[in-house]
């Protein structure tokens, strides 16, 4: 995987003469030159609007935009390209679904989320339940950071309308067995909709939405080598047809009359206004790049790096790692604490050597409360992460201990 480094311009940059050790890919990934070029090319050569002009560059833009949709569909094995809706990102995708489903919730229903959800797959559901006499239920984790799947039978009931669940925890790294969970849920509550936050999964491993069997799957472009401001909602055709539009405007209209409006079919029904054309094209190029590497290879590399990191970190006294014990069970995310040292101080000291990690609750405050923590430090990896990066992290953490241990 070493030869991918040259494709990422940011990794050539130095700050104070030192290279950048980027270990925050769970927040956002770096961008390869090809993705930067693809956006640049759109803006320079054919930056027309889509689905409108009967002139060459508009048709070129439309083709590139729709081609990106096809690439996304292929990448996640969607049965139909019309099931791919471009959004601003994971957050907007979830809000779109939650707004539509929220209207249909009635007193006595319940919605279920897991304790390890990112705020963006927690709060939209919590807020739909509040004040409607709809119960907001939590699926908890065990001491190894895995979901208590034995509790599914009690947490999910026949009145469960939604299960909102992450495929990979952005803190613990836990990989949830979505396929098995969906099967169990269908058995208990056949009409329960399963919404999968795949923001930490699609960039890092093979995802097949049909194998999962969920109803909606959402993810962001910027965490998978693509631009910011572009994301995806995948949903089953019949559900997308039922779901209420999220926003109204141009592009999503079939007919407007003074007294009524007829919307286009999905995906246009959910893409009001001029979309992020350059972003979609960039995302399509990111998918090309990932496919040229092969998602199995991406996963294998991250598993190797994660295993190496777990081993190296376990040698540091006073360092606590959260989540599953083995790389097999986790994505390339490791949250940790160092005894008696505040996570912000760790991040600040590491920054002196350009080591980029995240400190805080990583938009997962309910999980941190559950763990009895206010904050953790998180290192996260991608296909460009090297053993040298991990060695720098380990050295940096030793420096933190020397400097700040009391």
């Amino acid at each position, binding site marked *: 995987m070493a030869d991918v480094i040259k494709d990422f311009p940011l990794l050539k940059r130095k700050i104070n003469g030192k290279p950048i050790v980027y270990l925050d890919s769970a927040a956002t990934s770096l961008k390869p030159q090809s993705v930067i070029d693809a956006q640049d090319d759109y803006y320079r050569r054919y930056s027309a609007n889509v689905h409108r002009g009967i002139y060459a560059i508009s048709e070129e833009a439309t083709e590139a935009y729709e081609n990106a949709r096809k690439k996304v569909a292929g990448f996640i094995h969607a049965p139909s390209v019309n099931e791919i809706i471009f959004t601003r990102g994971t957050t907007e995708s979830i809000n779109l679904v939650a707004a539509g489903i929220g209207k249909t919730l009635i007193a006595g229903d319940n919605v279920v989320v897991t304790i390890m959800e990112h705020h963006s797959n927690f709060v939209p559901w919590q807020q739909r339940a509040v004040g409607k006499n709809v119960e907001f239920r939590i699926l908890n984790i065990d001491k190894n950071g895995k979901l208590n799947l034995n509790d599914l039978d009690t947490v999910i009931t026949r009145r469960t309308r939604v299960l909102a669940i992450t495929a990979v925890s952005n803190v613990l790294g836990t990989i949830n067995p979505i396929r098995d969970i969906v099967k169990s849920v269908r058995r208990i509550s056949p009409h329960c909709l399963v919404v999968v936050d795949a923001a930490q999964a699609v960039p890092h491993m093979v995802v097949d939405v049909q194998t999962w069997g969920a109803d909606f799957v959402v993810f962001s472009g910027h965490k998978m080598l693509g631009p910011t401001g572009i994301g995806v909602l995948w949903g089953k055709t019949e559900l997308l047809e039922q779901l209420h539009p999220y926003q109204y405007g141009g592009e999503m209209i079939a007919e407007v009359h003074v007294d009524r409006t007829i919307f286009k079919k999905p995906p246009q029904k959910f893409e009001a206004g001029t979309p992020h054309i350059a972003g979609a094209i960039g995302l399509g190029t990111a998918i090309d790049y990932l496919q040229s590497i092969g998602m199995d290879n991406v996963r294998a590399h991250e598993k190797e790096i994660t295993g190496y990191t777990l081993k190296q970190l376990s040698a540091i006294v006073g360092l606590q790692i959260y989540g599953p014990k083995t790389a097999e069970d986790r994505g390339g995310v490791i949250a940790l604490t160092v005894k008696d040292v*505040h*996570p*912000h*101080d760790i991040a*600040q*000291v590491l920054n002196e050597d350009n080591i980029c990690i995240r400190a*805080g*609750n990583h938009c997962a405050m309910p999980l941190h409360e559950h763990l009895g*923590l*206010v*904050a953790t430090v998180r290192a996260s990896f991608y296909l460009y992460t090297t053993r040298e990066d991990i060695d720098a992290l380990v050295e940096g953490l030793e420096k933190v201990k020397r*400097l*700040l241990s*009391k």
Partner: protein
Amino acid sequence: MDLYRDLILDHYRNPRNFGHLDKPDVAVEDHNVSCGDRMVMEIKFKVKSLKSKAAIEDIRFSGEGCAISQASASMLTEKAKTLAAEKILVLTLEDIVEMLGTTLTPSRVKCALLPLEVLQKAMIKV
């Protein structure tokens, strides 16, 4: 920039005025929710008047936080003992930065300021 200078590390490792007072006139607690920092200030006053030249007889702080917030609290409580209440109330971020003897990146400003905010809240409670 060297944020973790010897002076700051010294106050972090050996905080001055850390702990509790027997019968404080006032005790105020506040948090930086995003950092998970918690800061408590307990004060005993000499004379309960803002015009008094050295209003604070004794002061203690407690709580949890990063090295910056802890060192800032330690140094601020020392400084506060020498100042009139009215002077304490007009202290600003600039004074805290000067006291710490370093520069702060935007993300660390709220860490350094938490002790001052708690202290000023306590002072106006008198």
